């Protein structure tokens, strides 16, 4: 299948939806691609659970409705795996392959949780915070279970609140950031009324959840599954009993696609100008790929990208003031939840760093670079293509990642050759 669009949007989270809606409203032919079968991305999938009577509410409802009213073509359940030529992406859905041609491309691929290895993190019932939330959403019984939520970032609070609403006994919410950092964060919010309101609401909803700051898990203990969590609580060693440990160390942007099409990154984030234009002509990026800033930032950047890609630069310009405010919040988040360097000492020498290939810390740590570690120890060489251990090693060793090559997600060998795969 080969299809052509004026504007192709990759990622159907808040940024992608806003971009697609705005470009379509300007009369452009637009398609949106997402590997999940439903739009909304990670955040609105989570948000929808906080709905009233199963109905989507708030921003999510507004934007989903707007998307429904457009003629945007949806490729849901499809994942992009290759950019075989300029202005073409290849997407796969099972064995099906589509070649999607575009005049402009908007990449809104969001972020994923950063997981860090520590002794016992591979024990059953130790999960990513977002991962546990998704399991509970899918029906995992959590009522009455003792859960420790640990790591860093505002999503931990959201997950803890959600789990408690589902009947979990959240016995500890461990935030590695210090109280003073969190206070600075609160002060930083004073100029941003909606963010402050969110914070107050979360503060209210999370009351009664024991929050520990400057605290992180040092080991997950148990015989066949998690039984206890060892914590470093302000330098003191503490153990608490738990049925689940949900971990997340803030978010890392999904920059595989921006890298594949040749966009320049600044650190982990893709470089964009104020109109969300990347360093590659006609390629835009919006949302967490440009800086982890949450839904509001994603919506503003998505609109700017969609309008600009559709040629409505004037309209986009009217949103720049709002964008500047959300950028300040993004920077504030980065400062508040910066990882404590002590976390680099979390893995023991026999702790598995790469779960796909069973590679331990001692096999990884003697190497001088990510590439050398990959070649000598097979770290990052498995099916997840280093998405988890690569982000961990970036923090643990300060290694830069390699350039990205197709396929950016595993696909059947036959799909590598595009639509001609139908011959096999």
């Amino acid at each position, binding site marked *: 299948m080969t299809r052509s669009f004026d504007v192709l949007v990759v990622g159907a989270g808040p940024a992608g939806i806003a971009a697609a809606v705005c470009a379509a409203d300007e009369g452009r032919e637009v398609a949106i691609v997402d590997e999940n079968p439903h739009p909304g991305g990670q955040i609105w999938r989570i948000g929808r659970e906080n709905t009233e009577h199963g109905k989507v509410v708030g921003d999510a409802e507004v934007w989903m409705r707007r998307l429904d009213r457009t003629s945007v073509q949806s490729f849901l359940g499809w994942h992009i795996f290759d950019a075989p030529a300029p202005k073409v992406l290849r997407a796969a859905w099972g064995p099906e392959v589509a070649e999607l041609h575009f005049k402009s491309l908007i990449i809104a691929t969001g972020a994923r949780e950063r997981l860090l290895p520590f002794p016992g993190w591979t024990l059953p019932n130790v999960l990513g915070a977002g991962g546990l939330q998704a399991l509970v959403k899918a029906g995992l019984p959590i009522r009455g279970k003792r859960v420790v939520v640990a790591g860093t970032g505002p999503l931990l609070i959201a997950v803890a609140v959600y789990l408690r609403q589902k009947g979990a006994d959240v016995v500890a919410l461990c935030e590695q950031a210090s109280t003073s950092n969190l206070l600075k964060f609160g002060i930083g919010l004073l100029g941003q009324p909606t963010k402050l309101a969110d914070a107050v609401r979360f503060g209210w909803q999370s009351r009664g959840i024991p929050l520990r700051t400057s605290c992180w898990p040092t080991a997950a203990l148990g015989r066949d599954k998690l039984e206890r969590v060892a914590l470093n609580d302000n330098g003191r060693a503490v153990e608490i009993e738990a049925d689940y440990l949900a971990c997340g160390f803030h978010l890392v942007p999904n920059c595989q696609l921006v890298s594949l099409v040749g966009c320049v990154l600044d650190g982990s984030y893709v470089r964009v100008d104020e109109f969300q234009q990347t360093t590659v002509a006609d390629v835009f990026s919006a949302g967490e790929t440009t800086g982890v800033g949450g839904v509001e930032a994603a919506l503003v950047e998505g609109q700017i990208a969609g309008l600009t890609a559709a040629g409505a630069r004037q309209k986009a310009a009217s949103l720049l003031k709002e964008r500047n405010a959300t950028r300040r919040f993004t920077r504030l988040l980065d400062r508040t939840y910066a990882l404590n360097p002590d976390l680099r000492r979390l893995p023991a020498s026999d702790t598995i760093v790469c779960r796909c290939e069973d590679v331990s810390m001692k096999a990884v740590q003697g190497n001088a670079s990510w590439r050398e570690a990959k070649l*000598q120890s097979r770290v990052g060489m498995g099916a997840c*293509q280093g998405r988890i251990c690569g982000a961990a090693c970036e923090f643990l060793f300060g290694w830069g990642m390699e350039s990205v090559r197709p396929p950016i997600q*595993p696909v059947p060998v036959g799909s590598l050759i595009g639509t001609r795969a139908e011959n096999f």
Partner: protein
Amino acid sequence: MGHLVTGQGSTYDVVVVGAGIVGAACAHFLTREGLRVAVLEKGIVGGGATAAGMGHLVAMDDSPAQLALTKLSLQLWRGLLEELPASAEYRETGTLWIATDEEEMAEVRRKYGLYSSMGLACEVLDGEALAKAESELRRPLAGALRVLGDGVVYPPVVAQFLLREVAERGALFTGRSVSSIEGNVITLGDGTRISTGYVVNAAGCSAVDLTSGFVMRKRKGHLIITDRYPGFLRHQVVELGYLKSAHSVTADSVAFNLQPRATGQILIGSSRQYEDEGAAVDDDIVRKMVERACAYMPGVARLSALRIWTGFRAATPDKLPLIGPSPGNPKVLLATGHEGLGITTSMATAQLITDMLLGRSSPIAREPYLPSRMNYEAAHA
């Protein structure tokens, strides 16, 4: 070549430039003879063509000299196997040379006669026996030659293993580029000068930048690796047409060439291109490789592909490596130009280089690989 002259202020008897499999093997052999060896590498150990290749240990008979070199290499590899760490992933898979028709079966029988006469264990499989040996191959096929002693290995780990003594003595220098070699003095990119008895230039494609007087070209290759499918494939399987396509010296080509890794992953090869010095994955070449692989083994289309990468082979005009003194500087011995056979022939290369430096004779004739042949060819072209 006379005996190695040591001393006279040199810190090292031999400095090897390049820590790919060839440089590593040379350093290992020379160290084992008691020589003081240092290795200089601009990148990381085994990070160039050594990391990009398949790691197929294979007897090849494109020419009598090639067969002699690969056969000696396989013997030397066998002597090393017991010491290799498990992470070197050695497996004696054997090679199946696949014949699609009677013309190629005639080639199978010719090859069988030659290999047998050389003492290389092999057998002729008819179509039925081939289908039993590898059930995923399309049917019918005419048959195959099974070469039993061939194997596969994971080269970057082997390179590091071979360099362990050098590294332990603190004489392995990675991240150090060489800017020039004059006489027996090496100047590094940062201006450091090292004087040595002899230099072994094992810098792969970069060897031409350091030693003049010979011609080499970069020959780009692509490989695809899949997820784990234990039992899908048992042998390294290569089309006999490979001999025609791989050794055409000018044209771009692809050939059916699959390898089972110890992990159960399948490596899908192979391609050969000139004139493309960029590392980017070439969509058209990947398409041809996949089509070729699926033409022989349709089930490959369903396997999950994890990664594609590219690399560059150092190719000489006559398809044989350059092993021996450089024509312009007798203090420099070349050990490069191994094209697609460097993993296999690293061992015989190291043996020959060591024999030359120690003034010993070698188990095979060295003349076919001497760099001086290139001048001869140029003069008579």
